[in-house]
Structures are given as structure tokens and as C-alpha cells.
């Protein structure tokens, strides 16, 4: 039996930048998820993406933990940054990069990578 709740918490707290989205970076299934992904890419962020679509329980559990009702959701080192609108606005003002530098260090762009994580045993890799 998988413990979805603790898997989600582990991603939020363990990943530098966690992006909970509809689809994956290679196959984005929603315009807002795309906007958040592209803003993170422009900022040069390392991205650990989780697709919420394989199981509706992922989204329910995520929103219960974050108190945020919509997808996508972006976390930096465990802290909720916001959804697509906020991430876009912060990127445009340069604040997103400042936050990433503060939390991940000035060389965060060197670790730039994109990967997709699964929080259920049934999720596609």
C-alpha cells in the first residue's frame, strides 16, 4: 500500500523546485501548467515535475497539504510559491530568480535539469 500523503510531502520538502502539473514537461496537458513550466525554465530553475492526472487523489491530497485549490502549484524548498499567474508575475519582475538564488544559492542555474517524479506506484515515469 502506497502512502500518497507522505510521498507528496517528500517531494515538496525534498525537491529544490517542485512543480505539480497536469501532464509532464514533455507532454503538458494544460495551459496554466505550461505557463508555470515556461516561467520556471526562463528563470533557469531545476524542475522536479509531478503529474497530478494519473490519480485524482494526488490533487486532493496536494491541495489538502498546501491549502491551494488549483493546479499547477510550485514549491521552492518546501515553500509554496504559487500557481501559474504568480510564478509568471514573479518571473517577469525578476523576483522568482531572486527567490531561487536566496533558497538554492547563486549557482542554482548550474544544476538545471528537468525530471518527472511519480507519487503513486501507477504513475507513468
Amino acid at each position, binding site marked *: 500500500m502506497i502512502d500518497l500523503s507522505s510521498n507528496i510531502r517528500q517531494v515538496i520538502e525534498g525537491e529544490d523546485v517542485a512543480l505539480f502539473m497536469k501532464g509532464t514537461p514533455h507532454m503538458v496537458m494544460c495551459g*496554466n501548467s505550461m505557463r508555470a513550466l515556461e516561467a520556471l525554465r526562463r528563470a533557469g530553475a531545476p524542475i522536479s515535475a509531478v503529474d497530478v492526472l494519473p490519480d485524482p487523489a494526488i490533487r486532493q491530497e496536494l491541495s489538502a497539504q498546501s*491549502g491551494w*485549490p*488549483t493546479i499547477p502549484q510550485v514549491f521552492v524548498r518546501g515553500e*509554496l*510559491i*504559487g500557481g*501559474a*499567474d504568480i510564478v509568471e*508575475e514573479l518571473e517577469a519582475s525578476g523576483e522568482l530568480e531572486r527567490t531561487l538564488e536566496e533558497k538554492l544559492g547563486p549557482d542554482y542555474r548550474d544544476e538545471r535539469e528537468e525530471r518527472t517524479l511519480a507519487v503513486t506506484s501507477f504513475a507513468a515515469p
Partner: protein
Amino acid sequence: MATDSIRTLLAEAFPDASELDVEDRTGTGDHFQVTVASARFQGLSLLEQHRLVNEALATPLADGTIHELRIKTKGGAA
């Protein structure tokens, strides 16, 4: 229809709003862009500002009336 009820919910939550706009982005009654300018946002982070809007629209977000929501808040700058 949904546009009106969203506008009503926002007007109740932000009675002081100097700007309050709800746009049905796709014409399908479930993808919305809302814009709210309110003194309540003053001093709050973007996250907190959007949280107030999300809270005002908690019911239509939870029951699926709103499939996609875009939020623009104004008035946060101190």
C-alpha cells in the same frame, strides 16, 4: 451565468474593490480570468493576495464550476 455568480462572490468578498472584472476566456463558462483591485491587498504577498481570491471562490473551485482560473490582483503595493 457562472460569470455573474463569480462576480457576485468577489463583490461580497471585496466590497471595497475599485476594479472587479470577470472574463469568460473561452466562452464556455468554465475558464475565467478575474481581476480585482482592492485596498485589502495592501502589504500582502502575491501568494496571500491570490489566496484571498481563491477563498472567495472556494465553492465554484471545489464543485468544478471553475475549470481554470487566472487571477490578477492590484493594489498590493504599499
